[in-house]
């Protein structure tokens, strides 16, 4: 059997890896592995969680007639945070792309970059929350502040969990525990990370930009 890689739809592809993946691929009726399907079902159900939190915020933000209200936001600062999170989706995609090519070095580089960008976003959120608190906006100050902290806090927890998963993947990759035929593991964590990003796309528009 030839050792050289061949092409699959324009990408270099090693037949041995294809055979390895065929051996490891679970036999399901849908042709989709159970972990991947489970992640998509989880993400679909997570839409309901964030839908509830966003709806609650929308309902309560208009009822807060006294300070604090919408005017407390520092939109330019949050725009930079949003941009950082958006770019982390790019680096996550590059990590998935690298592992599917068997490029483990770049996989580790992009995984760590994604985790760092996520950490910058979380650091920005902590800075923002601290500033709000110093200006007198506590969790129980009014319905606006409670619903705001709950919504953005839940999102922050999701990002933090994502960072932990990325760092775990990085350590596993360093130990050589993620061979190319297990690229789907990185892809599944990537799905979670992209979901966190698209939720922020909605939160940024609804909470910060729409007055």
């Amino acid at each position, binding site marked *: *059997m*030839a050792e050289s890689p*061949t*092409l*699959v*739809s*324009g*990408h270099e*592809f090693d*037949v041995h890896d*294809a*055979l390895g*993946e*065929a*051996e490891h*691929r679970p*036999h399901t009726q*849908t042709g*989709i592995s159970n972990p*991947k*399907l489970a992640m*998509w*079902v989880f*993400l*679909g*159900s997570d*839409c*309901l969680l*964030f*839908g*509830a939190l966003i*709806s609650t915020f*929308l*309902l309560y933000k208009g009822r807060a007639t006294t300070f604090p209200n919408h005017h407390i936001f520092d*939109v*330019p600062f949050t*725009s930079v945070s*949003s*941009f950082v999170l*958006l*770019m982390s*989706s*790019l680096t*996550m*995609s*590059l990590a*998935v792309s690298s592992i599917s090519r068997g490029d483990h070095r770049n996989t580790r580089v992009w995984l760590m970059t994604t985790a760092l960008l996520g950490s910058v976003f979380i650091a920005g959120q902590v800075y923002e929350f601290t500033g709000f608190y110093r200006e007198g906006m506590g969790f129980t100050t009014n319905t606006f502040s409670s619903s705001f902290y709950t919504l953005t806090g839940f999102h922050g927890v999701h990002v933090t969990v994502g960072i932990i998963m990325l760092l775990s993947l990085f350590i596993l990759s360093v130990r050589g525990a993620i061979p190319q035929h297990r690229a789907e593991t990185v*892809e599944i964590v990537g*799905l979670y990370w*992209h*979901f966190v990003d*698209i939720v922020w*796309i*909605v939160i*940024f*528009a*609804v909470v*910060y*930009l*729409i007055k």
Partner: protein
Amino acid sequence: MSDATEEMQRLSEHSLTEPIPAASLDGAAHDHPADFRYWILALVLALITMVEISTYTFPHFWGSHATTALLIMGGIKFVLVTLVFMHLYFDNRFLTYVFYAGLVLAVMVYLAALASMHFF
């Protein structure tokens, strides 16, 4: 003969000089976009975000259309990320149904909830 053995035999019989169609691998390999497409998408998303921010910095230019424009731009970004970064465009269509079923359910339920509380 198991499915995996049949697939290995089919692959080994394939000429190694020709590209193997990803479809014939039945999920063993997916068509993923090339990396430069990810960069282009990231650029497009960054540009849309800049336009979104302009609704805040130039409110008089957008006027009463700002909210509608923000919702449309947010929707475009959402769909682009799910299609390309999350590979829904390239993956099994069933995954699209699973995810968007949850999303549509969430939107319908909470629109109804907001309407019942006289939000609109």
